[in-house]
């Protein structure tokens, strides 16, 4: 039996294996004993902190700050509405596309419940469970005879449109509260989801432009990609913050003599613009790799059938190119998710910003370890689920491939 490439010895031979590999000679024995002691001490230290000396009240007293920042409690229904819509759509899509039982997704969600319940007072826990119900409801709806049979293709098309429509819908709904009040996990997720979904089409266009036969388009795309990839994200965020108002919008107010001071309400949008610019350049390079992986014969066969350039791209080249780079794309999505924490430099209170704020509160001053451990756990849960989802998508799309 092997796990991750390592030979796991049979139980009966475990002792022999240990003797041959861990205790063969005095030097190795000393090393083994030393390492066991070190690991033990470290584990004891962490365990002691987590279960005994840590003041988790720093977290529980700041639930709202961690999850939605300064978003007013009375307006939280907007966030719940978005979550319910997305959960319902997720369930519906799972029913329409996946060949695997939703128990897997629900299992993943249930694994997250302890975190939320730990965070939640009754009402929030109920609403969280409710979103699971929305997922189940969407799934059940997708599995009704009509949708899983005769109208399956129509339902899939509608679902795709609903997903696209859900983005502006979510933004408008959340925007009932000024973006400067958005914070915590909410802000992190907004920056990630909108960053990815806006950057992705631009990335594809840049990749196609880089392969274009028109020199002007090719030069522009190569220039954009290489310049952006040569600049750190943190610089791009600063530039977006200071240059974007000069480039679009507020410069008009200067022209009319109205001074612009302080933090603009549009900081979130500026950060998002920076993230989109940054992500588009990286995604473009990944997509380019996928485009190069599609054999020339595919384009030739499509041309020989009389398909035009758009059909060839949309039906033949892009589906194969993107499929080939799903792992790299999701890897980029995950790093983008984690990189959103850099918006801290624009004084936005994302998940990391919330953690910093808590450890500056008079009651919890210096409780960095608790807050950082907690947000690390949240980052990990989300990133791990993204990675799992990518494996699922690969499996679903892998049919018929060698």
């Amino acid at each position, binding site marked *: 039996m092997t796990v991750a490439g390592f030979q796991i010895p049979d139980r009966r031979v475990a002792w022999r294996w240990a003797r041959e590999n861990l205790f063969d000679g005095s030097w190795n024995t000393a090393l083994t004993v030393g390492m066991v002691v070190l690991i033990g001490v470290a584990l004891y230290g962490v365990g002691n902190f987590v279960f005994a000396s840590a003041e988790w009240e720093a977290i529980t007293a700041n639930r709202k700050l961690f999850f939605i920042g300064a978003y007013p409690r009375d307006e939280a229904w907007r966030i719940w509405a978005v979550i319910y819509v997305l959960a319902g759509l997720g369930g519906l899509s799972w029913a329409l596309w996946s060949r695997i039982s939703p128990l897997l997704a629900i299992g993943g969600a249930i694994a997250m419940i302890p975190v939320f319940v730990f965070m939640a007072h009754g009402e929030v826990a109920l609403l969280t469970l409710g979103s699971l119900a929305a997922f189940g409801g969407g799934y059940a709806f997708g599995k009704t005879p009509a949708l899983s049979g005769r109208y399956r293709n129509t339902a899939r098309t509608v679902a795709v449109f609903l997903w696209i429509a859900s983005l502006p819908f979510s933004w408008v709904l959340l925007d009932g509260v000024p973006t400067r009040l958005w914070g915590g996990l909410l802000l992190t997720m907004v920056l990630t989801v909108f960053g990815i979904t806006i950057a992705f089409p631009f990335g594809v266009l840049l990749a196609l432009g880089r392969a274009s036969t028109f020199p002007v388009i090719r030069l522009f795309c190569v220039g954009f990609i290489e310049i952006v990839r040569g600049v750190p994200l943190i610089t791009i965020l600063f530039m977006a913050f200071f240059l974007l108002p000069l480039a679009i919008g507020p410069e008009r107010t200067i022209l009319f003599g109205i001074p612009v001071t302080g933090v603009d309400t549009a900081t979130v949008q500026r950060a998002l613009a920076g993230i989109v610019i940054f992500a588009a350049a990286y995604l473009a390079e990944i997509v380019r790799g996928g485009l190069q992986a599609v054999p020339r014969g*595919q384009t030739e066969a499509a041309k020989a059938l009389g398909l035009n350039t758009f059909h060839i791209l949309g039906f033949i080249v892009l589906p*194969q190119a993107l499929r080939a780079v799903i792992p790299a794309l999701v890897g980029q999505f995950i790093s983008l998710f984690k990189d959103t924490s850099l918006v801290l430099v624009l004084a936005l209170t994302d998940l990391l910003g919330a953690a910093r704020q808590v450890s500056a509160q008079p009651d919890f001053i210096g409780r960095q370890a608790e807050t950082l451990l907690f947000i690390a756990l949240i980052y990990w849960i989300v990133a791990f689920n993204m990675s799992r989802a990518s494996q699922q998508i690969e499996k679903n799309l892998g049919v*018929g491939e060698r």
Partner: protein
Amino acid sequence: MTQDQMSGRDGEKRVGTRNIIEARDVEKWFGDFQALRGITMSVKEREVVVIMGPSGSGKSTFIRTINRLEEHDKGTIIVDGVELNNDLKNLEKIRSEVGMVFQQFNLFPHLTVERNITLALSHVRHFKKADAHDMAMRLLERVGIPEQVDKYPAQLSGGQQQRVAIARALAMQPKIMLFDEPTSALDPEMIHEVLDVMRELAETGMTMIVVTHEMGFAREAADRFFFFDEGVIVEEGTPEHFFTNPQEERTKLFLSQIL
């Protein structure tokens, strides 16, 4: 003596009198390398033309200029009355009337057999879904594998894949079919199933240009035969002429090597 009788077969098929393809002094360079050094050839309606020659002789390049997968640098090519050049507005329309079968099949691996066949029908010919499906089924029956309609290309044998590729090209109801070494990538036991389909297609009167080394097919199905070497036509004639009485030394040498 008429053209038909010259073809040596008993008149099931009538080779037409109109030139459907006319190529004059076609030249093509790849960088400094000249792949075609002045090819002049015309093909009549319902004629089956076989092109042979050693690798690098320009035979594949030449048939790829006919649907403009390669652009020729000099000379003229007229396909069904339309001259191929850079001003062409409706290249897609011309291509849809010239079917092509490739050595490496080039099926779309992410689409089912049915989608492979119906994709261009839906988006170029604007067929309704049911009509496209019917057409796909008819063609799959014609090439002998209707039961594979829902499979993906990777689930088929090489011979079956090539037959799907032929069905895909035929779905557009082309006036001309180009075959670029259609059996060269196949295991020997699968070659005959593809050649059978091609032979049947020739008998129904399809205009075909076939680049191949299959002597049996050339002898039975070809009306005319061309031997290419180093970008020029070395010898042309009927298959009988070619197999019994080749004139050029280069042709004789090539034949002695592959027969």
